[in-house]
């Protein structure tokens, strides 16, 4: 298994730098580790390059695009049985007010932003959110009702430091999309947790404890070899 990583994993885990991999034609199972899997960023190009070479890769370029588009993430997650909220994709504030109602959370549909979501409790807050997340109404936004508390946490290979309920949702998201490193936004409503969004991490958000977990998972996956996917 070939590990391509922009994160220094220490001496115990051999890995290739993304820039070196992009110039190579190594044919092997590829594990692409990156804090930022956004479209057009290096993390995306590594997966794309691996696929063109014919390699099986984690994560796939399709997953990278889809998880960063909030409505697609929700649609595919709900198809896979992960609890999600109803949502509306539009740039019309009126339509959002009519169909979602306050309070609500609003996600960008374009994946340019690191900022996650905005909470709108009234009309003016909603106008501000749609304007800023929609980049001056150029893009649509994805609105979801806010019925409980929002929790945001890091998920590393589907594992997290939170309680069992959130751990379960992180595990399911990893099973479906195979994004090794990300931040999840989840809404807790009474006793249930609903997936609301996913976003990349900033490099400084990856802490030594996370690196330890990543190295452990890489070692485990290396042993699994060809059963890496599925």
């Amino acid at each position, binding site marked *: 298994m070939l590990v391509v990583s922009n994160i220094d994993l220490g001496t115990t885990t051999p890995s290739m730098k993304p*820039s070196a991999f992009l110039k190579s034609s190594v044919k092997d199972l590829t594990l692409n580790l990156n804090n930022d899997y956004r479209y057009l960023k290096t993390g995306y190009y590594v997966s794309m390059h691996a696929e063109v070479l014919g390699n099986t890769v984690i994560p796939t370029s399709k997953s990278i695009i889809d998880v960063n588009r909030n409505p*697609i993430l929700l649609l595919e997650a709900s198809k896979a049985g992960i609890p999600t909220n109803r949502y509306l994709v539009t740039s019309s504030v009126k339509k959002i007010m009519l169909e979602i109602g306050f309070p609500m959370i609003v996600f960008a549909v374009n994946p340019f932003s690191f900022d996650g979501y905005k909470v709108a409790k009234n009309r003016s807050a909603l106008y501000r959110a749609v304007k800023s997340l929609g980049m001056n109404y150029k893009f649509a936004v994805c609105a979801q009702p806010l019925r409980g508390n929002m929790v945001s946490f890091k998920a590393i290979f589907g594992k997290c430091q939170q309680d069992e309920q959130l751990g379960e949702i992180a595990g399911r998201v990893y099973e479906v999309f195979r994004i090794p490193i990300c931040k999840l936004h989840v809404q807790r409503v009474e006793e249930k947790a609903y997936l609301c969004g996913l976003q990349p991490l900033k490099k400084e958000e990856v802490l030594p404890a996370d690196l330890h977990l990543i190295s452990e998972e890489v070692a485990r996956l290396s042993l699994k070899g060809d059963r890496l996917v599925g």
Partner: protein
Amino acid sequence: MASIACFVEKYNFTDSREDVALQTFKHTAEEMGHEFDFMFREGISEIPKYDAVFIRATTDPLYTSYVVSRTASELGLKVVDDPESIQICGNKIHQYLLFKKFNLPHIPTIFINKEEFHHKQLLEIFREFGKPVVIKAPYTSFSRYVEKVACETSFREVAKRFFRKSDVLAVQEFVPTTFDWRVGVLNDKVLYVCKYMIPKGRWKHGAKLRGKPTFIWGRTVSLKVENTPTELQNLALNACKVIGHGLYGVDIKQVGDSYVLVEVNDNPSIYSGYEDLRSKDLYGKIIDFLVD
């Protein structure tokens, strides 16, 4: 009878030639006994009501059109452009890697990486391709984000601008021609053929006027498919095969007697009196494909 949603944005109706083409799609579909509705961003939630989705708004994995395409595909609807085609055609780096892999003749291209962009690499590029060279952002469309540079200073200025959005760019040899071939392909068959003329004194079909935001476009000369070279048609068909089986516009340059690929575009322009001039049946063929 099928119901077709045509996903458009307001700008699709600003040019009268595109407006007429869109209305022709609607009339053709209705004459064939189908429903054809224009769907804007606000109507995305209505996708499940339809049997097929035809995207005419500009496509890119970053745009709402991709959300429409992927949503329709996940719901099992027929969709043009399909999300896989948008993913490959929307990223020219992906596309050139596939052309290389399948040995399809294309303009000599190398990739530059934001992390390893330095003086020595620039010298190597100019040594290999000569001057000028063309820098292409992966998300180029409608002749935008493709610039010709002849010195290190302008190379760095353009690359810096394009690197803001993408970590990898394509650099190509400059191949001057008076026109680009445009071959429209649908489901592995040639649909129409045009020549996109390069305006006088320019080097690409659409060029910005110096100091102004407006674009000038070269003429479009439409040809009968049967009067165009077989080699040209075959190259276009082979290029589309590595991408998918939908609707594409293949740009090809003719150098002497040989042909090289410039790029394959999903969501090709269809303007009344231009692409359809010698291929009036293209509307019906596309509707047929959508409802098949």
